[in-house]
């Protein structure tokens, strides 16, 4: 009266116990892989947001023209272009269509 339990793919799991094990294993693998990938992407985005926030944080609560800004601009001019380093390495908005 009660029908037998059928696997989603009757061909994959019917041949041997090894095939049945492989079928179950790949089912778990294919189920967990996208969740793992999405979790890693979320962690990556979170770390990027936190790193951006930590860079921006010292600029807040500083008086305009204060010690930090003056020191930062002096450091920028000394350590960036004057030493032959790439100016675009520190900036985001470099024009791309020039090359």
């Amino acid at each position: 009266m009660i029908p037998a339990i059928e696997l989603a793919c009757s061909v994959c799991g019917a041949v041997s116990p090894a095939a049945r094990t492989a079928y179950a294993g790949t089912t778990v693998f294919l189920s967990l892989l996208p969740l793992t990938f999405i979790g890693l992407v979320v962690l990556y985005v979170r770390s990027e947001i936190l790193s951006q926030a930590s860079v921006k944080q010292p600029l807040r609560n500083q008086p305009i023209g204060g010690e930090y800004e003056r020191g930062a601009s002096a450091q920028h001019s000394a350590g960036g272009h004057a030493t032959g380093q790439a100016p675009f390495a520190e900036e985001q908005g470099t024009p791309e269509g020039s090359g």
Partner: protein
Amino acid sequence: MMAVGSPDLPVAREERQPAVPNAVLAVLLFVGAELMMFAAFISAHAIGRANMVEWPPPGQPVLPLESTAFNTLVLLGSGVAMRYAGRLYDDGKVDTSFKALLGSLAAGTFFVVFQGVEWARLLADGLSFRATPYGGFFYLIVGAHALHALVGLGAVVWMVARLGRNTLRREAFQAGRLYWYFVVALWPVLYWRVYL
């Protein structure tokens, strides 16, 4: 009473940068899709292999383990050079970064050429696409990876040309590096599943 948002008031405008650049996000989405495609290939290979009584099937050539292991190390070296190039670029050392990127390109090219030579040798030894699932899975999985490696090499060539002219944007470099890391990191898994 002054209205909120009056044009007379100085408004602090802070330009918001995206947490992840658009190019990097696009590559992440693409890599996620490709990852699932390769996962499907690996799963089908595992089930097909479990269904076979003997693996490799009788009369089929054995895959070259040692030479491909060496080639795997070369590809991993390419990934390390790419990582090094990225760090140098972030430090503003463009010239050294350019050389490291060239090294990564050379190692990646060697990997693809070496794989092509191995393919030719296996074809000559009688490993065909249609004779058994053994050959079919091999050419499908390794060929799909080779296709991705070729696309990645094209991207690296583009990055080398841009970096040589100092016109490579940080986001583009990040996106290209991310794709190449995917190609490099995927191969050892494929080697383990297909060759061993």
